[in-house]
């Protein structure tokens, strides 16, 4: 039988057994996320406008990640709105940086794959590079948004009389831990996705100059930092946002 299919079924069973209904829902959010990505690829390959598609799918993907994993409506709504706002800020940053990076397309390491494929697909790969960077950061932003929002809602529930200032203070404290843990997830995730790339470089005797200016290396480094910036921005934003809505009532 197909390896990937068996592994996926194993994951579904484990998630259901260990986390029950929420686990099953989380599993489907993962599947939907993959389907959405394939959908994006199809739409772009049909020649539709890349920025428009990206802007439409960012909220869809965020919603899939956030709403499937949380049972609490306040958490879901606040996490979604604040991460959407952070994404919009981040998109402008990514747009500017990718303009200067001029790092579109694929590297030489995929030359074997490209054999037999068109080298002139007629789609602007510099725009696709921006889409890739944005999508790569979405997971980290959504996760941090849910963590901080859920933590604060929990505090508010256990101490309903808490003031706005105290809530913001708690947010800053929890935020510190979240920055640390998210950084680990992002950093090692990156190691896990660039390892083969670097191992591939080595036998070719690339010079430092070539490696440090290589578009794939630069793109991976930038994606790591975009994600970190996203996590850093979401913490004060989600905290203030939530403190405002929770104490308003």
């Amino acid at each position, binding site marked *: 039988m197909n390896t990937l299919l068996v592994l996926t079924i194993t*994951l579904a069973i484990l998630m259901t057994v260990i986390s029950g209904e929420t686990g099953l829902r989380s599993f489907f959010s993962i599947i939907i996320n993959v389907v959405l990505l394939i959908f994006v690829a199809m739409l772009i390959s049909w020649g539709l406008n890349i920025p428009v598609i990206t802007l439409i799918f960012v909220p869809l993907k965020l919603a899939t990640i956030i709403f499937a994993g949380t049972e609490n409506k306040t958490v879901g709504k606040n996490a979604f709105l604040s991460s959407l706002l952070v994404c919009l800020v981040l998109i402008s940053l990514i747009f500017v940086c990718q303009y200067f990076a001029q790092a579109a397309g694929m590297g030489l390491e995929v030359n074997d794959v490209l054999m037999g494929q068109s080298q002139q697909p007629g789609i602007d790969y510099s725009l696709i590079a921006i889409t*890739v960077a944005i999508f790569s950061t979405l997971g980290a932003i959504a996760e941090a948004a849910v963590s901080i929002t859920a933590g604060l809602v929990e505090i508010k529930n256990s101490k309903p009389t808490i003031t706005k200032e105290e809530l913001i203070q708690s947010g800053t404290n929890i935020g510190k831990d979240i920055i640390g843990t998210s950084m680990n997830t992002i950093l090692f995730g990156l190691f896990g996705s660039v390892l083969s790339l670097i191992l591939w470089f080595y036998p070719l005797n690339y010079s430092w100059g070539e490696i440090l200016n290589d578009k794939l290396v630069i793109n991976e480094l930038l994606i790591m930092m975009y994600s970190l910036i996203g996590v850093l921005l979401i913490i004060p934003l989600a905290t203030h946002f939530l403190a405002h809505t929770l104490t308003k009532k």
Partner: protein
Amino acid sequence: MNFKIKNQRLIFALICLILGGAITCWTYFSTNIYHKEDIAVIMPDKFEDRLIHKDTDIYQNKDQTRQQTFYIKMLSGKHKGRVYKVINHYYPSQLTTQKYRIHNRVLAKISKNKAVVLSPKRDWIPIMVLTITLSLMIILAGKHTIALLISMILSWAIFFGLMFWDLKTNSNLSILIYGLADIIFSFICLIIVQGYNKKMLVTWLATLIGIFSSFILCYLIMQLTGNTQMRYDTSDFITQDPQGIFLAQTLLGILGAVLDEATDIVSSLHELIIHKPNITKQELINSGRNMGKEITGPLINVLLLIFIASALPETILYLRDNAGLGNTFNYTLAIGLTQSVISGIGIVLTVVSATGASLLFLKQKDRS
């Protein structure tokens, strides 16, 4: 008091911003960083970009072949100050070709009186973005930034060290090396954050059990199903032992997520045991599961997006070339997806290992 701390942070962030900005500028303008390549700049006058011909490939994709003619002035090396003419062909889709702009700084080589432009000079951009990241971090995390920075630098250092070891042994021991890497990395990360104590050891144990039990499970599944449709030969895996490197990559990629999760669960259960010493086993198991429920979904999604978003350019290319959805999926997304699913299994199993480890070791201590 609070106001004072805030002001201090702003000052430090500003210092970081100015310092980083200076380093960014230095990197951008400096011409002697590299030994093998020379730096040149594209001159603004006589810059030409003209259409050679319009192309339609066998898949009916419409593209163009364009030719750029420009002059570069060498800024370093033996030929410093001289001007060379460069002709660059590119396709506007820029899949494998590069378009240059006026005033671009580029890496160039001179051979037999002809200049070859290698690539745009991109090294200053990560430094610029790093400056922004660190300044933000100082504002938000304050003193904590130092610890974060140290752990980040340490991680990179160990990562590169291990990689060189791996290369020295011709990637024969990949799985062993990166398995060992997991053990060392997690120990160091935990010691930096928590210090050496029983809770930290329990977290360490939970992390390792989570990673290695999922690894063994997935390895068995892969062997039993005969690795069908696992195309390691696609894209990034053109090395001697593709399966080994794939597994090593998975071992490394999952560590951060599992570490966070184990820390979260063990720390919270530890708090619970302290505040409520007579808590029952069942209550502890329930708390562990509840926490796991909230964390697992988003964590798996984080890794999923890191692993498969990077396959988007290839996926689009395959679809563009009418490769069919099934083929496209197998050739471009399957590897990243497999890596995500294996990571997912690790993340789910860590809920069990973290709850179990806390139950066994933390609870017993309180009884005695």
